[in-house]
């Protein structure tokens, strides 16, 4: 059975704390002030970064959320496996993103760095595939 979104994000956070503490510190610094709502299929989770702390929550106040990303599992793995580009995923409507452009750019840079870390960590890779 596929891992659910919130436990997945909690495990990723645990993994980053354990294996990549310095990189996590920098990611938190760069993401300070972001409240990020992730919808994956019908599941939701919120990543809240405030005052040098990061928290994974089930929900947050609507007006505090400054980034919303909706996608399907199929779309996520198509993009990770290079079968579709981000632009193709967005054009198809399987990936939708809301937020002010500057915050979105910050989030994009953060995800890029997280994905780069994931390439070098078999733990990260196999954990991601439990989400499928």
């Amino acid at each position, binding site marked *: 059975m596929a891992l659910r979104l919130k436990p997945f994000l909690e495990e990723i956070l645990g993994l980053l704390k354990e294996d990549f503490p310095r990189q996590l510190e920098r990611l938190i610094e760069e993401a300070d002030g972001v409240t990020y709502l992730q919808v994956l299929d019908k599941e939701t989770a919120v990543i809240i970064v405030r005052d040098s702390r990061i928290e994974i929550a089930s929900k947050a106040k609507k007006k505090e959320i400054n980034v919303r990303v909706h996608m399907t599992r199929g779309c996520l793995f198509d993009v990770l496996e*290079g*079968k579709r580009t981000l632009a193709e995923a967005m054009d198809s409507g399987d990936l939708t993103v809301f937020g002010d452009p500057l915050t979105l750019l910050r989030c994009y840079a953060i995800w890029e760095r997280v*994905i*780069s870390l994931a*390439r*070098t960590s*078999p733990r990260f890779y*196999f954990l991601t595939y439990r989400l499928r």
Partner: protein
Amino acid sequence: MLSSRVEDTPWVDSFDLPSVFDPRLPLYKEWHDFVFFDRTNDLFGLLNFAVHGNPYDARRGYGAALAFLVDSAGKAHTAMKLISLDDLTVSPFSPDFIGGGVSVSYRKDNSFSIEGKIEDISFDLDVPVVQPPVTMSQVGFDVLSRNRIDAGMLGVAGEMARVWDKWVELPRLTVTGNLSIGAASYELDTTTGYQDHEGGRFDWGTVAGWDTGVLLCDPNSGGEPEKVSFLFYRYGPSGSSSYGGVIVKPPSGEERFFDSEKMTITRSGEFSGDRAYLPGVTRLLYPDYHPKISETIVFSGAAGSDKVEITFTPKAVCTIVVASITNEAETTFNEMYCDATLDATIAGRRYQKTIPCWFESVRPRGSLNQDGP
């Protein structure tokens, strides 16, 4: 000459797993490359089975199986699967690589059984070893004992010994069995199989790259040598030095070595055929990354009255980006399926033929000299 027998394959081609006390355990990497071309189906194949990182820690190491196939229309089909070390069996006592739904098993009759599924590519192959394995030490010994030793030879020998714990080739394999790509099935039967097996404990950031490959000759088809292979290895602080050569072996005769010091390499045009990128996330991270590949690469050289000229024309390319586990270094492998037009004269006999070829060009990612000599 140092020599091996076919019967030596199981130990020569086994995995050189490092000691658990080795301080360089996180840098360990080792792989089998099986290459073939089936002339009836006009199908090229490269199957790679690898271990990366600490082989004793499933959190710090992993196995990988990769397929790069090119069909008769020149279309590249690629697939890759990562295998958890919890599920992978490799050993210093055999070439076996078993796990994650793929299996390379060495049998008592000196053949490999290679079977499994990587995404939509399935294979069930019987691969007898036809010729004995050749090791890096054997090639080095032959080259050093038959040729005048120069600085390039010594430089590259020192560098390869520093980096590689193992570099072995099985120069001829028979490949029979079934292979399918999605709904398309192929029955393979070829004597042009080849394997190489490399391993070492080094960081990708310390390697300047190489160009290596083999013409998948069929000496029974007439007009083809027994073997044509090449290696040009880059070394030195900026990777600006390179040494190597081309080896040509006639069907019944002694190998000829064409030293890179007496060869010219010319490159022209830009490849525009089918291209694939692995792992898939490379496309997400570097959407505009298309390292330059030449349209044609020509090796030309002479040794006494013998001469060789090979014109490589890549037909499909698979670009693989490998990331260091310990730092930010990345290395790009351009795996190319080429037509190689050979024009060689060895001991008075001329060989003129276009032969399918596997050409592997490796450089640090981002190197300005991605396609350089």
